[in-house]
């Protein structure tokens, strides 16, 4: 029986674990969000939406996932 390897990451300041091999788009979907409506920053670098489905989550990554809300 082999254990699934997981990565320890931070999303919007909160600690999470995801399966190794998860893409950023996969992570966004796992959170219940539509990758087409959010912007993702990984370790202080914006990840272009076009590459969300290609880039894999790495152990220790720090993510900010944002969208637009009401403001003045």
């Amino acid at each position, binding site marked *: 029986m082999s254990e699934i390897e997981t990565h320890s990451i931070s999303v919007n300041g909160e600690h999470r674990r995801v399966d190794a091999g998860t893409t950023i788009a996969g992570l966004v979907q796992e959170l219940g969000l539509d990758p087409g409506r959010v912007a993702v*920053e990984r370790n202080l670098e*914006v990840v*272009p939406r076009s590459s969300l489905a290609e880039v894999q989550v790495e152990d220790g990554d720090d993510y900010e996932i*944002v969208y*637009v*809300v*009401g*403001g*003045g």
Partner: protein
Amino acid sequence: MLSEEVEVNAQGHISVDSWTVAGRTFTSRLIVGTGKYKSLQENAATVAASGAEIVTVAVRRVNVSDPKAPMLTDYIDPQKVLYLPNTAGCFTAEEAIRTLRLAREAGGWKLIKLEVLAEAKTLYPDMFETVRATELLSKEGFEVMVYCTDDPIMAKRCEDAGAVAVMPLGAPIGSGLGVQNPVTIRLIVEGAKVPVLVDAGVGTASDAAAAMELGCDGVLMNTAIAEAKDPVLMAGAMKAAVEGGRLAYRAGRMAKRRYADPSSPLAGLI
């Protein structure tokens, strides 16, 4: 008929008016914020009543604990109303740039509202950081509308740094005190080669009209509408006030006199 002709000509004379920022032309001179509303429905209704073609929005972390919560974009269609992402809450140029890079990725928005604040108490802009951020963002291809102090020299510095519009405060954000310094706002208008919009401080319709009568290209407001007892009605009032103030500016007001001057002829009195 003669009276119809007069009416058509008069309407034509009044209606030919628009303003352009960074190559985009707008008819409405009122930009509204989308913060502080009781509900997204109310927010959408005020935007419709205001006639605004541009709304400001903020960039914030998604709510991971409630991912299915309704979103602003469900109620205010970004295809119909231009979203102007802001940098509210940013206190350094770097924070502002980070926020706007994310905004650009979220919706492709290049035209943005920069505000770099100095302190929470007054929410006054930090003009050194603001000018620095304007320069960096302009070089990165952003079209920067800049929230700035009501200081003609600082407004000029922003323009020199690449601002596509300067947006001096009328009074502190959320204060509703009205234009406190009409002299410097007028000086900014006279000196600027880019559009000037009064941003912040408007409390009621007459404040918006007063800003427009100074020759501003537009007015940006949030709290004055959101915190009115009837926000939809106030949005309509602001629309009328901005239009009225603009027409009065275009018309050119009469000179002030120190004493009375009768409007009816003195000749032919019975």
